[in-house]
């Protein structure tokens, strides 16, 4: 009889302890969730900041005229280079929906919009050549500057009409 009582008490104590630890765990969980949520929010926030981070182009570069005529040959070169070097992130048609885009910290911008297309040839050339953050520099990857100008020419054909 005594033994039973003792066991009963023990079990109550145990269950109380269990509840306590559960509460403790719960509070820990809440804390963890809050932290994760906060970090997601802050990450999302930095993402927003990165999206709109301006990319200044020196005036001299922005004003450089495109020396390569946008003819059939230049567009063919540009298209071939676009498919090899650019399409995996920027997408086949420049929408920023390439297969690698989702893994990037910076979402590639939609290059078909008039806001993007209003940039000068010189600005696009500068950005392709120099790169920034996730966007690599293509100075050596496309070693002939005329070929980068051809890519710029091809990018013009991506504009939504």
């Amino acid at each position, binding site marked *: 009889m005594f033994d039973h009582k003792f066991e009963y008490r023990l079990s109550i104590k145990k269950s109380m302890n269990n509840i306590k630890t559960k509460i403790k765990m719960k509070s820990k969980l809440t804390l963890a969730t809050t932290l994760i949520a906060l970090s997601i929010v802050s990450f999302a926030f930095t993402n927003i900041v990165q999206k709109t981070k301006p990319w200044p182009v020196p005036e001299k570069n922005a004003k450089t005229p495109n020396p390569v*005529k946008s003819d059939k040959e230049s567009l*063919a070169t540009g*298209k*071939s280079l676009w*498919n*090899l*070097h650019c399409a*995996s992130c920027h997408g086949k048609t420049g929408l920023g929906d390439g297969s690698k885009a989702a893994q990037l910290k910076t979402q590639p911008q939609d290059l078909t919009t008039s806001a993007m297309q209003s940039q000068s040839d010189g600005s696009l050339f500068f950005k392709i050549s120099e790169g920034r953050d996730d966007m*690599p520099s293509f100075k*050596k*990857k496309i*070693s*002939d500057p*005329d*070929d980068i100008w051809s890519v710029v020419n091809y990018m013009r054909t991506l504009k939504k009409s």
Partner: protein
Amino acid sequence: MDFKTKDVKLTINIGKRLLTTGVCLVACLLLMQTTASAQDTTAAAKDAVIPAKAKPVKNTFQSIWIIDNQTVMVPVKGTFEMDIQHRFGTVNNGYSDFWGLYASSNIRIGVDYAPINNLYLGLGFEKYDELWDGSAKYAIIKQTRGESPVSITYYGNLSLDTRADPTKSLFSHYTDRILSFNEIIIARKFTDNLSIQVSPSITHQNAVPGYLTKNDSTGRTIFEEMKHDHFAISVAGRYKLGDATALLIDYDQPLTKEPTNNPNPNLSFGFEFSTSGHTFQLFMGNYSLLNPGKNALFNTNSPFDYTQTGGGKVKGGKFLIGFNITRLWN
């Protein structure tokens, strides 16, 4: 018995072989000239519109490799490259080793760097023979409209067998471990999609196996199983299927007739997939080694059936699966 197997010779009709190679080369040259003249007219028409200096043709090949051979390509100054190459076992065992994929494989890991324009230096290590190799590649002439119909590149490779040999049973002298390979690569980009290259080469081995056939008071004669210098030629081509995919084919033909142990030719074919920083080549071929000189001298896998000197017929079709991966940083 041992002596007999050593002395087995492969009957390869050297005359026929030279004739075939000759015909191939002449055909290539003829093709070259017709396209060259066709391109010159368009070049002239364009020059009339924009008087600009002609630039060398770009991207004759996408990688420095075309399966088992070097291409004419020398990457731009400042390029750093890493190569990973695998050759699996031959497919002949079928399912038991999954067509060679689970057989013992050969691996080479290499790095290359372009310190100045037109020069590429490389260093690599191959599993088989624990072979280190150093290489240098220099672009001598680049195919340019109105200037040169072909691109010409020199490639040299020096390899060192670093297997432990405490009893000196493999190498009597340290220099016996060294093998040199020199080749001239002549290539032409015929159209945007088709590029072909021909590369004659010479491989020199410092030591060859041999034995005494006469050793008495009148003197000694030594029978050398192989010659020290071995000539070979390879023809390789690429056909682009799209901006990132291409078909590759490569054929290597030994030219020097060795006293014994004649090496076999190599026929390989496969695909190339490119991205901005990588090229990936997946193919089937006969070469299992990952050094151009060793392959030229010691290839035992034959693509074709052949008859040995003793009349024994040897089945060909000894193909294996392999891949080359390159990563470029520039």
